[in-house]
C-alpha cells in the first residue's frame, strides 16, 4: 500500500511561481510519468515529492500521512537521478548498500543485500568495481540498484534514461517496465520523451508552465487530448495543425473550410458557430495519399524513409506543412505533387482557446479482447 496524493501544491522561487497548484492522486502500484517540455516544472515537482525542494504551499501525502516537513530519507522513497549520482569513491556494492550503512546495518548483512539486488539487476560480477569502471548502462543499473536496496514505498526516477544512447535506452526501458511488473511498487518517472511516457506509464501527467494539462492513460491521451498542447505533445511525429473556418454547424457534424478551398466535416458536438476560427488537428498516420478522393493537393518538401513507413513533409495551400505517413515502398520524390485525403472522422478539432471540442462518439482506446483472436 503506497499512495501519493498532491493537494494544491505550489512552489515559488523568489517571486517566480514554478508550480501553480497541482492536484494529483497516485494509486498503489501505479507507474506515473510526468511529461512536458523543459522548464514545465516536472523535475521540480518530483524533487518536492522527494523532499529535496521545499513545498511553498499545499499538502503532500504519502500513504495518507502529510510529508511536507519530513526529511527525504524518512519519506520511504528512493530516487534515481539523471546523472546517476553514484558515489565515485565507493564500489558498486558499497554504493548500493550505502543507505544500509547509514542505517547501521552490519557489514555482512549489507553485502548480502547488495548481492541480492545485484543478482536482480545482473550486476553480480561488478559488485567490487568502482563506478568509473562501468559503462553508462551499468551505472544506470547501479543507480536503480541503490534505490531497490532500500525497499522503498515509492520509486522516483528523474529522466533516468536521458544520458544513454538510443539502443541502450530502449533496452533499459524494457528492463524498467519488467522491474515495475515484478516489484509492483509505485513509480513516479519524469521525462521529456513522450515515447518513454507512452511505453512505460499507466498514467501520464502532461505538464506545462507549472500546471497539469491533462492526466490519463497513454491511449486516452493519444485519442482524446483535452487541448492542442497535449495533442501536439503526445504522438510521434507530432500532430498536424491547420487553421480552419467554420462554415456549417449541425447537431452531429461541423464542416470546416481549410486553407485553399477544401472542406472537411468532423463529427463533433455543435459548440462552434458559423464563421468561428478553429484549429483542425490530424495525426500523420491518419492522413492518406489518395488520388481518387483527394481533399487537397500538396508538394513534397522532404521524404523520410524509415523502412516500414515513409514520412512525407507536404506543403499545402495556405503555406502549412503536413506530415503524412505512407507505406514504406511508395515511390515518391521531393517536388512531386501528391493528393491527400483527410478523413473527418479521424480529425480533432480545437476551438479558438485551443481546447478540444468533444467528439460525438468516443474512439475505442483498444480493441475488445474478443476481437483480438
Amino acid at each position: 500500500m503506497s499512495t501519493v496524493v498532491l493537494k494544491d501544491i505550489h512552489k515559488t522561487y523568489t517571486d517566480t511561481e514554478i508550480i501553480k497548484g497541482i492536484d494529483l492522486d497516485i494509486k498503489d502500484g501505479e507507474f506515473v510519468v510526468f511529461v512536458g517540455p523543459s522548464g514545465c516544472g516536472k523535475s521540480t515537482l518530483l524533487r518536492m515529492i522527494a523532499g529535496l525542494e521545499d513545498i511553498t504551499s499545499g499538502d503532500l501525502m504519502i500513504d495518507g500521512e502529510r510529508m511536507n516537513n519530513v526529511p527525504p530519507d524518512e519519506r520511504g522513497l528512493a530516487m534515481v537521478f539523471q546523472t546517476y549520482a553514484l558515489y565515485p569513491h565507493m564500489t558498486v556494492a558499497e554504493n548500493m548498500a550505502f543507505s544500509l550503512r547509514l542505517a547501521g546495518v552490519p557489514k555482512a548483512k549489507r553485502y548480502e543485500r547488495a548481492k541480492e539486488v545485484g543478482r536482480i539487476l545482473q550486476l553480480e560480477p561488478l559488485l567490487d568495481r568502482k563506478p568509473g569502471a562501468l559503462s553508462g548502462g551499468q551505472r544506470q543499473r547501479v543507480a536503480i540498484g541503490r534505490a531497490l536496496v532500500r525497499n522503498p514505498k515509492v520509486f522516483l526516477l528523474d529522466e533516468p534514461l536521458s544520458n544513454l544512447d538510443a539502443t541502450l535506452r530502449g533496452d533499459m526501458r524494457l528492463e524498467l517496465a519488467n522491474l515495475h511488473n515484478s516489484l509492483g511498487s509505485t513509480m513516479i518517472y519524469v521525462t521529456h520523451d513522450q515515447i518513454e511516457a507512452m511505453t512505460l506509464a499507466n498514467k501520464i501527467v502532461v505538464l506545462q508552465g507549472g500546471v497539469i494539462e491533462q492526466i490519463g492513460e497513454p491511449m486516452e491521451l493519444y485519442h482524446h487530448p483535452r487541448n492542442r498542447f497535449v495533442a501536439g505533445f503526445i504522438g510521434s511525429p507530432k500532430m498536424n495543425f491547420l487553421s480552419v473556418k467554420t462554415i456549417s454547424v449541425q447537431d452531429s457534424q461541423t464542416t470546416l473550410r481549410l486553407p485553399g478551398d477544401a472542406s472537411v466535416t468532423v463529427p463533433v458536438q455543435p459548440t462552434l458557430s458559423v464563421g468561428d476560427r478553429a484549429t483542425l488537428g490530424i495525426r500523420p498516420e491518419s492522413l492518406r495519399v489518395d488520388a481518387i478522393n483527394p481533399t487537397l493537393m500538396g508538394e513534397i518538401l522532404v521524404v523520410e524513409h524509415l523502412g516500414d513507413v515513409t514520412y512525407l513533409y507536404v506543403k499545402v495551400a495556405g503555406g502549412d506543412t503536413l506530415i503524412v505517413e505512407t507505406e514504406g515502398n511508395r515511390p515518391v520524390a521531393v517536388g512531386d505533387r501528391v493528393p491527400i485525403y483527410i478523413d473527418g472522422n479521424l480529425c480533432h478539432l480545437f476551438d479558438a482557446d485551443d481546447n478540444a471540442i468533444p467528439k460525438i462518439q468516443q474512439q475505442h482506446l483498444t480493441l475488445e479482447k474478443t476481437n483480438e483472436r
Partner: protein
Amino acid sequence: MANTQKRGSWLIGLLAWLVACILFFPIFWMFITSFKTEVAAVATPPQLFFTPTLENYIDVQARADYFNYAWNSVIVSLGATVFALLLAVPAAYAMAFFPTKRTKSTLLWMLSTKMLPSVGVLVPIYILGRESGLLDTRIGLIIIYTLINLPIVVWMIYSFFKEVPKEILEADRMDGATTYQEVVYVLLPLALPGIASTALLSVILSWNEAFWSLNLTTFDAAPLTAFIASFSSPQGLFWAKLSAASTLAIAPILLFGWFSQKQLVRGLTFGAVK
C-alpha cells in the same frame, strides 16, 4: 603543419627548462655555497669548483640549536594547517552548498584581508600577544598563521567543494545521511585531493612565513625562518654560514614538497580538465 607544431613544442620545452633553471639557480648556488669556506664564498670571480667542507654546518649547529627551530617549524606549520582546515571545511561547506546572497561578498572580503600589509597591524597584534602572554609561544604563532592562511584555505576548499556534483549530495540525503555523515563519508573523500593540496599549501606557507615569526618570537617558539635570520650579521664573513643555515631550513619543506609534488599539482589543477 605537424612540423611547425613539433618545433613549437620544442621551443616551449626549451623555454620551460630555461625558466626552471633561472628559478632553481639561487637555490643551487646557496646549496654549493654552504659547502665553501667563508673566503671562497665571497671570492671573485665566483668559484664553481672548490674543496667542499662541512665546517659551516658544524659552526651553525654549535651556535644555534637547529633541531629546536626545526621542531618549532614542524609543530607550528602542522598546527596552523590543522586549525585552518577545521575552520575552513565547515565554512566552505556552508558557502558552497547553502549559499546566501552575501556568500560571494563574504568570500571576497576574506580575500581582501590578505591585501592589508601585515606591518599595518603589527603593533596591535604585538600588544595583544603581549597582554595575552602568547608572545614567543607556539600556540600564539599557530593562531596567527591559522588566521593569515584561512582566507586562502577557505577559498581553495570552497572551489573544490563546488566541483562536487550537487546530485551526489542529494543522493546521500535520500539515502539518509546526516550532515556529519554526508561530510565525512561522501564530501571529504570526494574532495580529498583538493583538501590534501590545500593542506600542503598551508604547510608550505606557514613554514616559509617570516614576518610574524621574526616579530613575535625570540627563542622558545622561533621557527626556522628566525634561525636563518639569526645568521645574518652586519659585519664579518657570514655568507657560507648563512647558506648552510638556509639550506638546513629549506631542506625539509623542499623534500616534503618534492615527495608530494604529484598530489600538489593534481590538487591545484583539480577540475580544470573534466
